[in-house]
Structures are given as C-alpha cells and as structure tokens.
C-alpha cells in the first residue's frame, strides 16, 4: 500500500516537474509570431456576465474582433466571476503589457480608475460609464440610448392593436431608465401627432418611482412573469430593458403568440433568432462601434480622454431593422421614423 502510494507520489512529483520544465520550452511557440509583435494589443475584461452574455460584454468584444479583422490588432480577454476578480484581471493585463484595456460596466468603474492611475502608460476605456474627472489615459463610453428608444416607442405606438405597450427594467439605474424614458417619449410623440391615446405600462415619465423592474439581470423566469402580467393587462408590445431577463419575456410572448417584443442592446433578430417571429425591432446600443472607435484612436495616436458619446448621429445607438415583421410598418410610418431620426440628429427634437 505505502509502496504503491510512494510510486504514485513520485509520479505526481515527476509530472509537476515535467510541467514546470515544459514551461520555458513550450512558451515561445505559444506566443505570437514576431511579425505581429508590433500590432496594438487590445485586452478586454468582462463583468460577471461573461464574454458571451448576448449583451454589453459580447457587443464590446465584437468591436475588438472587428478591429482585429480590419486594423490588424492583437486581442485577448478575461472573464470576471465576481467583484474581486476585476482588480486581479486588470493587474494580469497590466502585467501582459496590453496597449489598451477595455472594461465593461459601471461596477468595474472604481477598479478601472485605480488601474488607469497606477499604469499611466496604458490606455483604458470603460464601456457604459463616465467619470466626473478626466484621467489622461482613460476614456468612458456612454450612450444616448433614448434617441433610439424614442424611435422604438413611436413604432410600437403605430403597431399596437390594443392601444397599450409595456416596458420593464432590470434595476432603476440611469443606463436602464434612459431606454424607458425614450420609449415613453416616443409613444407620447405618436399620440401627439396622430391624436391617439396609446398607453405605456410599466413606466410613467411623471412618476419614475412607479416603474416596473425585475430587480435582476440574470433570472429569465422573472422576465417571463413580468411579460405575462404586462400581457394580462393588455400590452401587445413589450420592451424589456434587463439583459438576459428580457429573453424570458420573449419566451413568454412567443408562447402567447399575439404580442411582440422590442429587443435592447443588440439586434435580437440576429442574436436570438429563435424569437425572430415576435421581434418587432431592437434598440441597439452599439458598443462595438464606440469600442472600435477607441481602438482606432489608439492606433492613430489620437486617443482623447474623457467620454465618447454614442448617438444616432455617429451610430453609437440605432434602431434595428424590422426584419421579418417589416410588413407591420407602413411606408408612411417608416418615412416618419426616418424624419424623426433626422430631426433628432439635427437637434430639432430634444429629448432631455
């Protein structure tokens, strides 16, 4: 018994020595060929949602991949499982000597700022967050999502049969409620133009405290429950602003089959094709566009600290095409949407 154990123990020791011995010889081929050595190295750190969250992290990562294809950068990413990982991952990438480190989400804001201050030679960019002060090597990416949500609200008001549309958010935080604001204003605009009386359930511009929230960004079951209760109250178009929770809403809507969902963040028609038949459109927050922009700036040595704002004008936000449901939108409504978009870009419609 003990003999056998000693044998096994020696195997373990030899094995670990082999691994350690492998380290120096194995590493050179694992590294990039020298030709690419000079390429800008862009590294992304996700929040706890992970790289394939069909939301912020994934969209920002798409921007990095686009840049890899078009601008010839090198890229890498690390996923965070909890708050304590942010600092650890930032340190790991600082050690890797990345040229630009992209972080995602407001929760990673403190850690990103600290890392940017500790490593002044590395550029940092944070998605969906802006700092009060300007740090010379840090740029925040923020989005005027209400501009695109406004168009979605207008379209929803035009399509609804019941005269009621609904929305709910993940948490009552500005990056969420800005969608709901824009949506409600778009519906109000339609009512004003057409003299209709389409109601918005789940969000009241005059009384934000009464908004409907899942208080969660993960649990699809909650999205299902909220969608069912909104449909029970008569809404036939629902915009869930709660990340993956919204997919639960989409599932509930598909089961009933007499309502539509408006996606958020990315074009759900493309990211969740299983719901293609009930996706009216999506309010897109194109973090890939702004991320790409930041990477391009770093390559061109034209990095500007502060904030980069995604708008309809620079296509940092956009309304997705209507895809399979485009027959619901008459040419007249489409023309009005185009006009509204032009007005927002021109500044004749002000949303704040």
């Amino acid at each position: 018994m003990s003999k056998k154990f000693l044998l096994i123990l020696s195997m373990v020791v030899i094995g670990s020595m082999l691994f350690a011995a492998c380290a120096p010889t194995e590493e050179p081929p694992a590294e990039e060929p020298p030709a690419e050595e000079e390429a800008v190295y862009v590294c992304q750190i996700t929040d706890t949602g992970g790289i394939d969250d069909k939301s912020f992290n994934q969209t920002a990562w798409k921007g990095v991949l686009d840049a890899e294809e078009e601008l010839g950068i090198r890229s890498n990413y690390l996923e965070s499982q909890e708050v304590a990982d942010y600092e650890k991952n930032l340190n790991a990438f600082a050690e890797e000597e990345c040229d630009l480190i992209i972080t995602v989400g407001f929760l990673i804001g403190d850690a990103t700022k600290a890392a940017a201050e500790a490593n002044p030679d590395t550029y940092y960019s944070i998605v969906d967050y802006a700092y009060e002060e300007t740090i010379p090597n840090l740029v925040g990416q923020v989005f005027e999502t209400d501009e695109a949500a406004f168009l979605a609200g207008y379209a929803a008001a035009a399509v609804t049969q019941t005269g009621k549309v609904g929305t709910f958010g993940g948490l009552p935080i500005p990056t969420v409620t800005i969608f709901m604001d824009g949506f409600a204003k778009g519906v109000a605009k339609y009512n004003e133009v057409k003299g209709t009386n389409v109601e918005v359930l789940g969000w009241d511009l005059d009384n934000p405290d009464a908004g409907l929230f899942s208080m969660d960004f993960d649990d699809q079951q909650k999205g299902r429950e909220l969608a069912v209760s909104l449909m029970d109250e008569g809404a036939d178009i629902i915009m869930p602003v709660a990340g993956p929770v919204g997919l639960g809403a989409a599932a509930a809507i598909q089961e009933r089959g007499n309502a539509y969902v408006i996606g958020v963040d990315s074009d759900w028609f493309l990211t969740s094709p299983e719901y293609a038949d009930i996706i009216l459109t999506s309010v897109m927050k194109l973090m890939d566009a702004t991320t790409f922009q930041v990477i391009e700036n770093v390559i061109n040595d034209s990095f500007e600290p502060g904030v980069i704002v995604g708008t309809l004008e620079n296509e940092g936000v956009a309304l997705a095409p209507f895809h399979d449901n485009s027959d619901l939108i008459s040419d007249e409504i489409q023309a009005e949407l185009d006009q509204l978009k032009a007005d927002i870009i021109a500044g004749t419609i002000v949303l704040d």
Partner: protein
Amino acid sequence: MDKKQEKQKDAGKVLIEELNQDEKESATHKRSFWNVITIPLLAILSGLIIGAFLIAATSTSVYTAFGQSFGKGITTAFSEIGSAYAALFTGSIGDPVRIFNALFSGDKEQIYKAINPFLESLVQATPYIFAGLAVALGFRAGLFNIGVEGQLFIGAACATFVGYAVKGLPVYIHMPLAFIAGGLGGALWGFIPGFLKATTGGHEVINTIMMNYIAFRLTEWLLSGPMTRPGSGGMPISPIIEESAQIPQFFPSPIRFHLGFFFALGFAWLIWWLLFKTKWGLNMRTVGTNPRAAKYAGLSVPKTTMIGMAISGALAGLAGAIQILAVNRSMALGLSSGYGFDSIALALIGNNHPVGVVLASILFGTLRNGATRMMVVSRIPIDIVDVLQAIILMLVAAPAIIRTIYRLKEPKEEETTVFVSGWGGGQ
C-alpha cells in the same frame, strides 16, 4: 429525582467514554496523515489528467493539427496541454525561473512581483477558508447549512455599513469593529433557521435556502436604496469604506496579500480548538453524530442547534466581511462567485476538519488564480477550471472510483460521514 439525575449523568458519562474510545480506537488504527490524504491527492491527479483531455478536446488548433497528420495532432495536443498547465502553475505558484532571477537580482520590486502569484492564490483562498469552516462546523453539529451564501452577503453588508458610516475611529478599533459586525450579521442570519429548527422543527436545509433569497433581495434593496453610493444614481453599489476600516495589505499594489489570510488561519485554529479540545465541542459533535443519544445524555439539542447555526453563520459572515474590508473596499452585488456553495464541497474534501478545509481552500484558491494566467496564455476559458474542480470533487466524494482506478485496498472501517445525520437530525 436524585436517582434520575444520576442516571442521566451516567448515561452521559457512558456516552462520552464511548466517543472517546471511538477516537482512541481510530488512533490505534493509525489513520496516518498519508492515509487520509491519499484519496484527495489521487483525485486531484485524476482531475488534472481528465482536464488535460478536455483542454486538448476543446482546442481548435489540435483539430487542425490532427487534420494534417496524426503525429502532429498528438504533439500539438501535448504542447497545448503543457502550455496550459504550465500557465496554471506559473499563474498560481509562480514562475521558478523568474523567482530565481528576481532573488538573484535582489531587486525588491522584482521579488514581490515574482512571488505575487502564490500570494494571490492565498488571497483567493481566504474567503473559501471562512466559508468552508462555516459549513464544516455545521456538519459537525449535524446541521446542513446551505445558507452560507446568504449569510456571506449579510455579513458583507454589515461590514460595509460599519466600514463607511462610522467615521473618525483609529484603525485598531474601526477595522475589528467592521469585521465583527460582519460576523454578527452572519450569525443573526444563521441563528434564524437554527432557532426555527430548535423550536419548531423546521428543517434547516429549506430554511437556509429561503434565507438566501431573502438575503440577496435585501442586499439588493440596501445597495440600491439606503446604502447606495451618493451620486451613483441608484446603482447598486455602496460607498467606499473608510481607510480606517480597511484590512491592511502587506505590499504595495498590485500585490493584494492581506492580513485577512492570517485571520482565516487563526479562525481555523480556533474552530479546531473549540471542536476538539473543549467540552462544548464534544457536546456539539455528540449532537451531530447522534442527536437522540445526546438528548438522553442530558445535552440540550435545541441549544446546540441554535448555537451551531449562529457560529456557522458568523463564519460565513466573516467570509463576506473579509472580501469587503481587504479586497473590494465597497460592496456590489457581484460580491461572490458562489463561495457559499463551493464551500459545501470544500468541507467535504476537507473531511469537515479545519485543517482539511484550509488545505482544500488553498487548492481552490490556487486553481482559480492559476486559471487567470491560463486564460491569458492559452485562451482556455475559466469554465475549464470549474469543470476541473467539479471532477476533483466528484472523485473525492466517490472514493470508490479512485480506489478502483488505483487498486487501493478499502479501509476496514468506513468512516461515518457526519453530515448524513443532518438530514434526519433533530428528531
């Protein structure tokens, strides 16, 4: 009356003698150190071997190499596995070459950086130790505490609150105060299901799980309401704690190694001492092994249940407090990557013994820390490490598999697993 009492005492004496004899007997059995850790060690080895197959099987370059030729595929597979595990090793323990060079150069900063991977592993292990102790202590008392995650959140919230709301205290008062607040919060959260079990018989498994949900929603509400950071617009994040409440880190950033690790070791020793060197611990273990016998021995099962759950909860609360005070410095919802649930497995690997828990925690911390480097170098998703952990756990939990693979002889006496009685305990 007197006679009855005497009889009870007798029963108690007999039982205690019996228990002691049990221990003596197992001591004569010579359950040597090696004997105890053979299974976990072999499980880790087997886990790594299975993990190697997974790494090769999920790598696209291996498939392309196999497309070219079989030999090339094999070499590519081996180099992939080699570089992945090399990264796991250098990321969690350190690069031997680098450490040697740094020591040789004598540059302080270089030395710090070279040994940082190992220190970071200990940082990662710290909350595991507290959470693992919480579960292990519960098991010893015959209680299945599934509520560690919730107790951790409440503990973190209490520590955070004391950390930022109390101002103007010196470090040596403020920091312990915040730390203790975390423990008290967790203790309260553990005590409630303990109380319910002791008084009404409500099963702690159900109640601790339900308390988890309450804890999650409560902290969510606290963080986006009363405890939210001013100017964050209601985002669920707390203010940053005062400097005087922070548990000090030993080295300049980016090295995060902090005093809390030694707190964890201290608590492991304390729990060991309580469980195995005090009468109180003996009572608790007696209740844990056989509540009915304990009752006839004159021990108060309800009291032990309540105290056991409260202490278990306190340890869980400390796990949350340590993360806030030493690492995160403010509280957000993504506080835990599932420490409360991993800790159940940790307690199991560690045989519900504090020393075992510490070792298992360091293993988990090492694996998770090395995973970062593995992701950076080999682009292996962190999920592989989760799978690796799961395989190791399954093999530890099912020792028969390991015995079969490595043709080990079965020990004569199966050790009774204490936690089983938790399911039917308290009747």
